[in-house]
């Protein structure tokens, strides 16, 4: 027999269009079968109890990155988090930190995307394209694997202690994306193009507390990219090279 347990969902509510109202929690009692995810419950709450609740969702399979939020104090994707996994009858849901709230669990990701765009997140080539594919070895492909896996869900951004005190900091996701290209055997960007990150807003601002690694639902390690980029910057300062001329 599978038994449904009753849970209390405590969800932070706020509407930026009504700034005079302070954020407050709404409580919802709901019966949940084991195996159900937080996202599935959120949908039931919106459908059956409170149609005014706002949250983002799309793929419901941990690949689109829409539904990162704080679940019982921990950042994760609502779609891949089992309600029963906490061993607790109360589940508290809050929006991602380090962002302005738009409404309820929906935050304004504009700064996240602005920083993403700043690092020029595309393959940068100088040579003309060959007729067929640009050759790449299996090992070279593997080298970028963890950073390729980033789903841009902003969990790391929400978890970052540096961003909490310095909103100008570029954020772990930007460095992970940049390193994905720096490590790509096909990318030919110059070291000079890294000036953008060669400062306290950039890779030197990181406290290396590894919160981004804990928060990532895809096992990406943004700190690896920060360490990698710092090494490249130091090496360049000492020895030059990597497409100097630009």
């Amino acid at each position, binding site marked *: 027999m599978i038994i449904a347990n009753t849970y209390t969902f405590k969800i932070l509510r706020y509407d930026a269009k009504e700034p005079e109202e302070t954020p407050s929690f709404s409580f919802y009692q709901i019966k949940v079968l084991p195996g159900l995810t937080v996202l599935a419950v959120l949908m039931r709450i919106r459908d059956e109890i409170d149609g*005014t609740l706002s949250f983002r969702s799309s793929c419901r399979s941990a690949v689109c*990155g829409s539904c990162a939020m704080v679940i019982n104090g921990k950042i994760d994707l609502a779609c891949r988090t089992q309600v029963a996994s906490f061993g607790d009858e109360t589940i508290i849901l809050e929006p991602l930190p380090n962002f302005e709230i738009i409404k309820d669990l929906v935050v304004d990701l504009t700064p996240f995307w602005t920083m993403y765009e700043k690092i020029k997140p595309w393959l940068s080539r100088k040579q003309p*394209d060959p007729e067929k*594919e640009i050759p790449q070895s299996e090992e070279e492909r593997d080298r970028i694997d963890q950073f390729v896996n980033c789903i841009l869900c902003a969990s790391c951004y929400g978890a970052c202690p540096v961003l909490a005190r310095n909103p100008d900091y570029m954020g772990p996701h930007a460095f992970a994306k940049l390193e994905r290209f720096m490590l790509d055997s096909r*990318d030919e960007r110059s070291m000079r193009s890294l000036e953008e990150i060669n400062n306290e807003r950039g890779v030197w601002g990181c406290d290396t507390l590894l919160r981004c690694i804990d928060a990532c639902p895809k096992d990406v390690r943004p700190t690896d990219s920060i360490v990698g980029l710092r090494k490249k910057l130091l090496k360049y300062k000492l020895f030059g090279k990597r497409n100097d001329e630009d």
Partner: protein
Amino acid sequence: MHYHDILIVGGGLAGLRAAVGLCERYDVGLFSKVHPIRSHSIAAQGGINAALANNPNSRDDTWEKHAFDTIKGSDYLADQHAVEIMCKEAPNIVYEMEHWGCPFSRFPDRSIAQRPFGGAGYPRTCYSTDITGHVLLNTLYERTVSKGVKVYPEWFVVDLVIENGQCHGVIAFDLINGKIIPIRARATLFATGGYGRVYFYSTNALINTGSGIGVAYKAGVPIKDMEFVQFHPTALIGTNILMTEACRGEGGYLINNKGERFMERYVPIAMELAPRDIVSRSIQTEIDEGRGFDHPLGKYINLDLRHLGENKIQEKLPGIRKISIDFIGIDPVHDPIPIMPSQHYSMGGIDTNIRCETEIKGFYGAGECACVSVHGANRLGGNSLLDTIVFGKLASFSIPEYLESDGLTTPDESFLLRKKEEIEKKIKRLTSEGSERPFSIQMDLSRTMSACVGIFRTKDELEKALVDIAGIKERYKRVKVSSPKLHMNYELMNTLELEFMLEVAHTIALGALLREESRGAHFRRDFPARNDAEWLKHTIARIGADGKPAISFKEVVITNYQPMERKY
């Protein structure tokens, strides 16, 4: 009033590819109800087909063989000239995506890796482990960022404005600011994806409502072959998350409760790698005849990967392993994965030609929302990602030709303003009176579709589905949204979409009832054979004056491949 030369609706692969091709010469606005990166394309796993002949076992592969496999897979309903264009363009598309940075998996000789997929004579599916959609969509999004395409994320398109046979733009709902906004454009391209969520059991993202197809249809654009719905053989029970065909391409088995590799009985040579329509029917038959397993979440069959070993699973199917662990607590290295067939792909859609044109001047369609048709009655795995990028690109060639042609009338503001008022009235109605909850309507609709318009179909069930849909449409007239506030009102957006889902469902069920034969994914128990004499033709549905679909038919284009019996 908002204006763009070209308006693209949809930030998946098809929409982004079109935008990349158009943005340098035209003022392009790209509208998407979610941020482009959250589009359903992100979830594609297995790969994209192109006859690159990189695999040591496929040195003599050619685009013509790819075309033949596609046409045979389509059960001869695909338009053959369109298939030829797609398959010929495929290698260019894959190389182009690679040059733009797409991190494909590699063979030891440093070329793009290719794996076997169902219904294909050669291993020609290019991939990046099991996250091919993720890498393709990221690459195209990166490209749109590098080119500075103007994107409007979280803008939902609620209406298409057509007057005098010409498209004048759209009406959009800016979700964050809660505004209804008319947007005038000289050309409009829909790349709005599939309608999976019309079904209860679907592998599709929650956002795949097919509203784009419904919006176009309601505005008077003909839609094609709606009865052809693909059911994927292997979706996880419960959540119906896809377990890619690559699981079988890499060597996985399907096993029933007797421990048998039952595909042997149905398709002894191709086995697990027969096309999807056939494998899904085989699985459903096993389940119906009592050879499935029981689970509180439903009856299932096992997808067994264990013999591949941990190394191969981790190297080739890491995402599948993670999904299985996260969503059902099963590690495929140690236990088989419980699967069932689920709705997966929309073969039908907006009636387009090889230039992505529709009957309406200035209105175009590309990707899963469109039906050219390259997939006919059954799509081969790996051909849809290809379709989206090829036809996204082709739209970027044909739209400029239209814009540069003589005698075009400028899109008219007054039509758009009138439509805007209608939408505002509609929203007022939805948020003020009524007794029906939107979710219960959607639930009943999707349950009807899964129960009565599924893998196996009969006249009685299809008639019942049509009666049910008519009843649900009546209930929709009394639907009520909780809050009159527009901004971030997802319930309102869902309810607006529901109107179009009802139309999409209606045309699927009607097409399925009328087509008295079995072809590809459309299987009628009461008409189990293909009937080329009467049914080698496309179904066209357009909205009639009475608001009901009026059906007509259209020839299939045959070039080099005469219809034959489909054997694997």
